[in-house]
Structure formats: structure tokens, C-alpha cells
């Protein structure tokens, strides 16, 4: 019996547990974000440091700011669409002050853009660019395997691109061409305070961090140095760290889940094998068919299989004890009965007064009833023994059944028997005396339950694969709870009746044994036409090999 109720196998359960590890990428993401914050702080500090350094170079050099230049429109302007890669970062735009430009020139080897602005916010000089050359694709992760590379390129990178903000050099740099600078940072610096600002580019594609430092000439703020940079470098670093981390976690998860799945498959296959063995070991009637071969494994499943095995062994012992019980019981009873019988017989041979004879007669009647019970008890056991040696032969099934029914008509004169057999010979391979014994039991049963005056129908019908022998009677129907157990040993639906005949519930059990010997099956059902019961035995033509 396989119960299809297993909703979630061990494998599925383990994989479900594995989802806990999906928290690891999230933890990694949090860690990388922390790293990003740290990098940003460092970036801001660096920018502030650079601004301070430039400003320090320009402090107290009032001459630099005295000259006022105006021709702004002649200066080249930088546009967002420019081919930034072609333009060297070190280029210094000299807007108004060549001297300052010269100083800046020495400092412009950074990824930052440096402005020098006077008090009127006129740009005096500018160096560097916000836009960095795009990193070449060849600089990607050094994946040795092509599958790994493909996976990285085609699956993971697009995925990361969706999850993470990607740095781009394609943003609008609205300050680039200005000759008049403005902004919170500048305002702060002109007020004499080192100011750090963070603002999105005009189109929002990049974040620009800037630091502005005032330039002092004496006690007066003469101008300011602005150093600005995009956060792209930080973003790129963060993304790279995240991708690396995620790749590792993914690989670990993949390997882990494959290993766990294999392990779970192994476990569940062992358990399934144990289940199949346990189910095969016991047949539908609860008999132990064959012992369980306990596994040698030292773990809990091996333990379970061994305890299953020993439980089955004990069950076998108990079953054989139970089976031997009937014959042992009858054997043990026979001796005391023989004592009583021989004593009574001895007594009967004595010269006894006539009124004593009646007691001897009663004792002998009681003894023969007792002997009858014992014979019935052993009948099933003897039949089981006999079946092992019974041989089949070809015979006419219809003739055997008709003969038996003739016998019943003589044995039960008050009972009407209706016989329905196919005309002509019905050849069958089996044990005729067993068939007769089976019919005896069926008819004895039917006679007992039949409503007086109603016929018992004994019918033999051809079916596709064999014959159906049925005995039907009118009378009380079967209690529904008994349907499946009628053919078990020692099961009886009879009410107690004081007619002296023992009811051991072995009749239909014998029917079943004989039906099964012929490879057939016995069933009982309530009749549809009238109130009553029909017991049928299917006798297949091809006998099961025994």
C-alpha cells in the first residue's frame, strides 16, 4: 500500500532549509554598503585635503587675484558629449589667470577637477575633468573557464546591473563650461569655511562630491579652491566587491545545494527502500511474507531497519505461535478427552443400573461434541498443510458441483437448491475434492442463513478469464463492518445460538484458502434482487503457480 500523501519529501525539505542561506547575499550587500560609506568618507577627506593643499599654495599671494580678466567667451568649453577619453585629464584650462593655471598644472594629475575662483565667483583657472576614460572590457574578472565567463557576462552582470546602480561617465556636467562658479560649497568657502558638498549631476546620472577651501590673503578671503570628483570610482569599487562576493556566495550555495540534494536523495532512497521492504514483508492479511534483511549501516536509518527486522521477526514468531496454537491446543485437549472417553467407555462395559446408563450416554454425547469441535479447529490447519501437497487434475467442474448439490439435497431435505451450471462438460484444472470441500462450506453457510422456504442458488458462470462459482441465499444481509474480514480465520457474524454446533468462523476461511489455492479470490456481497447474501469464488483458468 503506497500512500500518496507525502507532500514534501526530504529533498524538498532540505532545499527549503537551504533558503536560509539566501540571507548571506543580503548580509554581503549590507557589508558592501558599509564599505561604500567608508570609501565615500575617504573620498571626501581626500578632496578636502587636495582643496586645502591647493589653497595653501595660493594663500597670501594677492597678486594673483588683483588682475581682472574678462574675455570669457573666447575660452573653450567642455561639453558633456565630448570625447573625454581623447582629452587628457591633465589639461588645464586657463580661463583668466595663467599663473594660477601654472600652479594647478602641477596638481592636476588626479581624477578630480580643480577650480580656482575669485571673490566674485569668476573662474580663474580650472584643471582636470570629472569624466574618466571608460574602463576597458579586457580588465574584467579573470575567469579561467569559458562557461564561468559566459555565465558572468550573460547572466550575472546583467543581474547585478539591475540590482546595483552602475557608474556611468555619460552624465551631464553642467558646470564644465561655466566661467562663473556657484554652489553651496563655494558660498561656504568664500565665507571662510572649508565646505564639502555632494550633489547629483543635472541629469541625476552621477553624484558629484566637491570640497571648497577658501584662499586667504591676509585676513581676507580672496577666492576659493574647489575640488570635485564623481563618486563613480567608489561605485565601481563597490560593484566589483559586491559582484565578487555574490559570485562566491552563489558558487557556495550551488555546491552546497547540489551536495545537500545528493545527500537527501541518498537518505530518502534508503528510507524508501526500507519502506518498500517493510511493505513487501507483510501481506494484505498481516502475515509476514519474508523477513526483513536489516541493513548494516551504523546510523539511525540502519538502526530503524534493524529494529523493523527484529519487530518482524517477533511478529513472525507470534504468527507461527498463533498458527500452531490451534493444532497444539487440539493436541493437548485430545489426551484428557481420551482419558475421559476411555473411562466412560470402561464404565459402560460394567454392569450398571439402567438409570446410570443415561448419564453415560450423555457423557458420551458431550464427548463426541467436544471431539467435533477439536476436529473443526484443526480442519483449517490440516487443510493448510494439505494444500502444500495437493495436486491438480483435469476434471469436469459442472459434474462435481452438480454432484455436490445432489448430496446437499439429500442432506438437507427441507431446503430447496437451485442449480445453474453451463450445459455440457466444463473442464477445469484443480483439486476436485477441495472444490467439493469449499462448496460444502459455502452451502452449509447458506443453509444456515437462508430464510426457510427460500431457495439457495448455486451458480457456475463462465467469465473471460475463468469461472465464477456463487452461492446465494435469501436472509439477513452482511453487517457493513464485517465485509472485509469475513474470510479471515475465526471471524463469525453469527449470533449466539444454542444449537450445539460450534461456530468458529473457520468455514469461510477454508473457502478462501481453497480459492487462493486455485489462484482465485472469494468475495461476499449483499444481493441486489432480494434481501440476502451471495458469496462468490472466482476460479481463474490459468492457475497461479504455487
Amino acid at each position, binding site marked *: 500500500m503506497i500512500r500518496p500523501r507525502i507532500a514534501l519529501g526530504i529533498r524538498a525539505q532540505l532545499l527549503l532549509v537551504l533558503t536560509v542561506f539566501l540571507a548571506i547575499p543580503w548580509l554581503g550587500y549590507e557589508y558592501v554598503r558599509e564599505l561604500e560609506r567608508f570609501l565615500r568618507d575617504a573620498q571626501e577627506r581626500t578632496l578636502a585635503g587636495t582643496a586645502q593643499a591647493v589653497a595653501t599654495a595660493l594663500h597670501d599671494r594677492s597678486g594673483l587675484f588683483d588682475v581682472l580678466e574678462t574675455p570669457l567667451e573666447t575660452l573653450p568649453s567642455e561639453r558633456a558629449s565630448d570625447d573625454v577619453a581623447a582629452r587628457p585629464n591633465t589639461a588645464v584650462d586657463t580661463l583668466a589667470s595663467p599663473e594660477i593655471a601654472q600652479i594647478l598644472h602641477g596638481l592636476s594629475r588626479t581624477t578630480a577637477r580643480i577650480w580656482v575662483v575669485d571673490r566674485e565667483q569668476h573662474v580663474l583657472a580650472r584643471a582636470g575633468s570629472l569624466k574618466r576614460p571608460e574602463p576597458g572590457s579586457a580588465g574584467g574578472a579573470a575567469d579561467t573557464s569559458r562557461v564561468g565567463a559566459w555565465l558572468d557576462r550573460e547572466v550575472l552582470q546583467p543581474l547585478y546591473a539591475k540590482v546595483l546602480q552602475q557608474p556611468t561617465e555619460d552624465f551631464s556636467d553642467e558646470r564644465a563650461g561655466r566661467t562663473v562658479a556657484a554652489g553651496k560649497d563655494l558660498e561656504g568657502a568664500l565665507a571662510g569655511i572649508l565646505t564639502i558638498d555632494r550633489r547629483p549631476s543635472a541629469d541625476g546620472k552621477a553624484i558629484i562630491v566637491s570640497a571648497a577651501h577658501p584662499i586667504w590673503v591676509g585676513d581676507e578671503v580672496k577666492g576659493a579652491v574647489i575640488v570635485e570628483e564623481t563618486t563613480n570610482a567608489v561605485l565601481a569599487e563597490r560593484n566589483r566587491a559586491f559582484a565578487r562576493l555574490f559570485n562566491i556566495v552563489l558558487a557556495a550555495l550551488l555546491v552546497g545545494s547540489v551536495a545537500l540534494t545528493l545527500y537527501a536523495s541518498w537518505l530518502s532512497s534508503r528510507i524508501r527502500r526500507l519502506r518498500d521492504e517493510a511493505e513487501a514483508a507483510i501481506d494484505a492479511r498481516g502475515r509476514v511474507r519474508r523477513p526483513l534483511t536489516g541493513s548494516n549501516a551504523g546510523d539511525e536509518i540502519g538502526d530503524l531497519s534493524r529494529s523493523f527486522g527484529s519487530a518482524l521477526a517477533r511478529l513472525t514468531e507470534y504468527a507461527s505461535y498463533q498458527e500452531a496454537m490451534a493444532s497444539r491446543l487440539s*493436541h493437548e485437549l*485430545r489426551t484428557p478427552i481420551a482419558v475421559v472417553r476411555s473411562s466412560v467407555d*470402561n464404565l459402560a462395559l460394567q454392569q450398571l443400573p439402567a438409570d446410570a446408563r443415561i448419564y453415560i450416554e450423555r457423557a458420551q454425547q458431550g464427548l463426541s461434541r467436544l471431539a467435533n469441535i477439536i*476436529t473443526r479447529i*484443526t480442519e483449517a490447519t490440516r487443510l493448510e498443510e*494439505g494444500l502444500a501437497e495437493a495436486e491438480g487434475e483435469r476434471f469436469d467442474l459442472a459434474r462435481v458441483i452438480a454432484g455436490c*448439490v*445432489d*448430496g446437499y439435497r439429500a442432506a438437507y431435505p427441507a431446503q430447496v437448491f437451485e442449480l445453474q451450471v453451463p450445459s455440457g462438460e466444463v473442464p477445469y484444472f484443480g483439486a476436485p475434492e477441495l472444490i467439493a470441500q469449499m462448496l460444502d462450506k459455502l452451502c452449509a453457510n447458506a443453509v444456515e442463513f437462508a430464510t426457510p422456504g427460500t431457495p439457495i442458488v448455486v451458480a457456475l458462470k463462465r467469465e473471460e478469464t475463468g469461472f465464477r462459482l456463487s452461492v446465494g441465499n435469501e436472509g439477513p444481509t452482511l453487517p457493513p463492518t464485517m465485509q472485509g474480514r469475513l474470510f479471515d480465520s475465526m471471524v463469525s457474524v453469527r449470533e449466539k445460538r444454542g444449537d450445539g454446533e460450534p461456530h468458529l468462523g473457520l468455514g469461510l476461511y477454508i473457502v478462501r484458502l481453497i480459492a487462493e489455492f486455485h489462484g482465485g479470490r472469494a468475495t461476499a456481497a449483499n444481493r441486489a434482487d432480494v434481501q440476502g447474501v451471495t458469496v462468490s469464488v472466482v476460479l481463474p483458468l490459468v492457475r497461479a503457480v504455487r
Partner: protein
Amino acid sequence: MSRRIAIVEDEPAIRGNYADVLRKQGYEVAAYGNRADALAAFRTRLPDLAVVDIGLGDDIDGGFALCRELRALSATVPIIFLSARDSDFDIVAGLRLGADDYLTKDVSLPHLVARIAALFRRADLLAAPQASEEILERGPLSLDLKRLTAHWAGNRVDLTLTEFWMVHALARFPGHVKDRDSLMRDAKIVVDDSTITSHIKRIRKKFLALDRKFDCIETVYGMGYRWNPAEG
């Protein structure tokens, strides 16, 4: 000189009862409770007939061993197994060891006495020269009702008493169906139906061993058995 019957039976009450009834019949009875005592006594003096139980106390198959040993001492002493065991296996095993009959303890004392008397008669007449004849002839079958022996086409059929009485009951009225009850009555046994079936099977086998075309005992299903006169 009265005949000497040995009873080997471990249950004292049964042993006593059997001994009493046989003594009343005029037999001399020697009763033994175990195999060793019985064998020692047999070695000294052979009984004229032995009634042996199979299980002798802890000696589960002691009766079988005793039967073998007694047969070794004498080929002719009639031996009856009287046991609570009624499986076909035990019956066949007992008869193979050379017992003349196998009875279960369901047998009544009068039946037992009749059987013992019949066995003595058979033993006597087998030893005596051909005297008066009381023969039942049915074609190739001839039953000597005095000696309780059966012949088929001149060959001796080695039947036990039970089997002989069954064959006699059937062959007396050829064509008439004998039901199981009357067969039991005639054979002076009380057994269940399946034991009758195995008795009939054994009888058929014994005849078939002599004549492969033997087909005289017909099973009439639901009724019993019938002796059909042999053709030809």
C-alpha cells in the same frame, strides 16, 4: 494360553483404562510408560500385539523409534499406533515404519477392542494353513474376510485394517454410493472428512501400484464413494 498385549503410553490414566478393558476381554496386558522400559521388556519377551503412543513424555517421536526397534525384533508382531496426532504426515510415517494400523485417540474402547481382535484373527489365519473360505470376489478383487487380506488379480494388496474394512464396505455393494459416515462406521474409526479422503487416496495408490489402470473407487462429489466393477 491367553494373548499378551503390550501398551506403551505415557499418560497413566489412559494406560490404566486401556489395560483394564483389555484384561476384561481376557488378554494379558503389560503396560509401559516409556520407551526404555518397553524395549527392555520386548527384548526379554515379545508381546503378541503392541499398542504404541507416538509421543512418549519428552520423547516426542519415541513411538516411531520403538516401532522400528520392535519391527527389527519381529517382522510379524501386529503394531497399532494410538496417538493424539492425526496429521497425514504422522499417519503415513507410522504406517511406513511397519505399523499395521494407525488410530487416533478419538477411537472408542469397543472399536479398539474390535480392531485388536481382528488383527489377532488375521495374524492367526495368516499363520494357519488354508482352512474355511470366506471370500468376497469382485472381478479381479478378492477379499478374504477371515484373514482380512485383499488380493487384486492374484496379487496381495497390503492394506491396513482400516483400509481393508473400507474396501470391503465399498466392494460389498458395487455401484452403491457409500457416504463418509457409513465408511467410518464400517471401518470402525472416527475421523474427519479430510482423513477419509486421505485414506481413500492411499487405498487407490496401493491398487494403482499393482495395476496402473485401476479405476474402481469413484469419488461421488457431495455424496461419498462408490465401487465400480472393473471392466473386462
